């Protein structure tokens, strides 16, 4: 502001006059110039030599320098570059005062940083014109510098914000979840943010999930949609949901969130834990391929649906592509940026280009393909995101529940259920949920469920309801057995079942005791069967899972110990 005001020109009354530094060793010349300039309302500073001039430029605000050549201490040629250095990036005009005959000297004046000449003897009109011209340039330069400064400030601010948002995105798109092995992928952004997104995760049951998505457009706006996609994907993978369910949920979220012209073409893929089959929900991405190790096409997989975020929830279609994975088959997914990459002749890389690149040699990886795309497009500017995923399916182990430290608190729990409660309650799942909440028990939940449900159901079905297991030998009998169970239970008038659960941390043992009020049964005849017949597998499994299984003499109480 002050700079611009000061440069307003000598005629302006309210603005401070521009400052002219006159550098000459001849007092007479300085005097002459001073009176000439003051008449034009300039503010004049004087220096006797180059050294003084450099010092003055450093300490005072000078707008233009009139510089003599021949001076003691530091002559004009030497002083000019030093003065220019002091001015930094600002335009500080140096006008050399020259005698007309010094033609040779003129070129040198420009070489050392001079901007103009002022021939002696001085002509007031010429001097005024030259000063005005240079001051105008100085003002324009100052404005331009201010704009540049403001621009680079905004640029730095935007960059800082982008970095911050990128950091948030990186965190949102990557969870601390185990990822499947055998996946080679590449995402390259046309802008700082990716309009493409690739997510992969392994579910607790060992199911392998992948999502490749391509939002309309690219950059920040396109990337915003990736946040809800990632959140839904990871949350649902954690619960082993099917890909069609995940796609549907994402579709609903994007349809709600994005404006009508924005959507996300995507393929969601799930591989089973043994990597023998794959299921894909394909919406709007170019055809995927199942290839052999040499890159030959085994199967073309076509998109069947509209992209995510377009259809209303009730229009959503779940149809899936199921594939059986032969040994060493590879799955290739990509977004249209790859096949639409163009060369200088405006030809597209194309699907054939991609397949040729895959088949150029065995076991091509994403870097090979990307190199092929880049070699094809030459120096041509990348206009869309290039994304490519190559999956070499590998069997994955289900994730074992993390081993927790076993609780050291001894615990016991007992409950007795009368006939009314036995009719209306299903106590086993709730009890097991409670027991599984003891630290260290989670990994044993399924086994404990089997043990307790077996003991409880035996007590109820045989002890109280006197049902005959023999019925279960046939398919129809199996159904009949459970139909009778339902009828008998509805008619139950008396009797009770008592459940005792005791945990002994020192022995790492859980003891389950189930007692019924029935007449008991002859357990000695009840041997664990060798073969797993449908009806007998409960008892046999009991013996396999439990450490000990014993009955009281009466046969109305079973005691099971289970080692944790």
């Amino acid at each position, binding site marked *: 502001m002050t700079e611009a005001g000061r440069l307003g020109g000598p005629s302006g009354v309210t603005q401070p006059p521009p400052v002219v530094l006159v550098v000459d060793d001849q007092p007479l010349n300085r005097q002459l110039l001073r009176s000439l300039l003051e008449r034009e309302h300039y503010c004049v500073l004087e220096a006797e030599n180059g050294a003084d001039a450099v010092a003055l430029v450093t300490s005072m605000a000078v707008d233009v320098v009139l510089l003599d050549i021949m001076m003691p201490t530091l002559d004009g040629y030497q002083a000019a570059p030093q003065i220019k250095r002091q001015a930094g990036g600002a335009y500080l005009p140096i006008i050399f005062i020259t005698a007309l005959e010094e033609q040779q000297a003129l070129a040198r004046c420009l070489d050392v940083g001079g901007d103009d000449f002022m021939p002696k003897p001085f002509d007031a009109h010429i001097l005024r014109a030259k000063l005005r011209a240079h001051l105008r340039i100085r003002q324009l330069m100052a404005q331009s510098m201010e704009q540049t400064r403001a621009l680079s400030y905004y640029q730095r601010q935007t960059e800082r914000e982008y970095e911050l948002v990128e950091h948030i995105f990186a965190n949102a798109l990557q969870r601390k979840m185990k990822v499947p092995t055998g996946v080679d992928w590449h995402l390259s952004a046309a802008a700082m943010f990716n309009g493409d997104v690739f997510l992969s995760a392994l579910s607790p049951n060992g199911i392998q999930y992948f999502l490749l998505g391509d939002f309309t457009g690219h950059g920040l706006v396109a990337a915003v949609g990736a946040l809800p996609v990632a959140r839904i994907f990871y949350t649902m993978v954690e619960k082993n949901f099917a890909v069609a369910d995940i796609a549907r949920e994402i579709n609903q979220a994007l349809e709600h969130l994005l404006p009508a012209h924005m959507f996300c073409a995507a393929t969601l893929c799930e591989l089973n834990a043994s990597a023998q089959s794959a299921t894909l929900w394909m919406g709007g991405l170019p055809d995927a391929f199942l290839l052999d190790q040499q890159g030959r096409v085994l199967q073309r997989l076509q998109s069947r649906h509209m992209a995510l975020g377009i259809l209303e929830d009730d229009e959503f279609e779940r149809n899936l592509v199921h594939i059986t994975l032969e040994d060493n088959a590879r799955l290739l997914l990509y977004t249209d940026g790859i096949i639409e990459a163009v060369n200088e002749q405006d030809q597209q890389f194309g699907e054939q280009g991609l397949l040729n690149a895959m088949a150029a040699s065995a076991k091509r990886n994403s870097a090979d393909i990307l190199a092929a795309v880049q070699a094809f497009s030459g120096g041509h500017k990348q206009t869309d995101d290039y994304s490519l995923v190559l999956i070499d399916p590998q069997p994955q182990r289900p994730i074992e529940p993390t081993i927790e430290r076993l609780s050291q608190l001894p615990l016991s729990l007992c409950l007795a259920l009368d006939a009314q409660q036995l009719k209306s309650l299903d106590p086993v799942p709730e009890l097991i949920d409670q027991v599984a909440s003891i630290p260290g028990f989670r990994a044993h939940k399924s086994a404990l469920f089997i043990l307790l449900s077996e003991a409880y*159901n035996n007590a109820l079905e045989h002890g109280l309801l006197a049902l005959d297991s023999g019925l279960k030998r046939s398919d129809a009998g199996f159904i009949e057995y459970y139909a009778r169970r339902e009828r008998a239970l509805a008619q139950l008038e008396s009797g009770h079942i008592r459940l005792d659960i005791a945990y002994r941390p020192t022995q790492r043992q859980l003891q389950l005791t189930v007692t019924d009020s029935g007449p008991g049964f002859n357990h000695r005849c009840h041997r664990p069967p060798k073969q797993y017949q449908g009806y007998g597998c409960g008892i046999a499994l009991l013996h396999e899972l439990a450490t000990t299984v014993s009955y009281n003499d009466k046969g109305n109480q079973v005691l099971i110990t289970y080692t944790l």
Partner: protein
Amino acid sequence: MSLNQHYDKEKNTLVIVIKDKFDFNLVQDFRNAYTSIDPDARTVEVDLRATSYMDSSALGMLLNMQKALKGQIERFAICNANAQLKKIFQISRFDKKFAID
């Protein structure tokens, strides 16, 4: 609904998906899921991705299904079960009659 089924025509596969508990409460539903199976079906998949536990009657149901359909169905599979359930199938030697993955 704790049991869903769908038939995949392309793969000639009946898929039965069981949610949460696989226990005696499903005896009738489970049987209904395969009694009117498509005559072209060659595979039955029981998807346990959403099953947290089962009781021994579930094993009985699976074996009954296998017995009832073995003339027609070439492959019985139990898919996407969690580690604990897989262990139970292993202990029960189910891998002799079912593909467990």
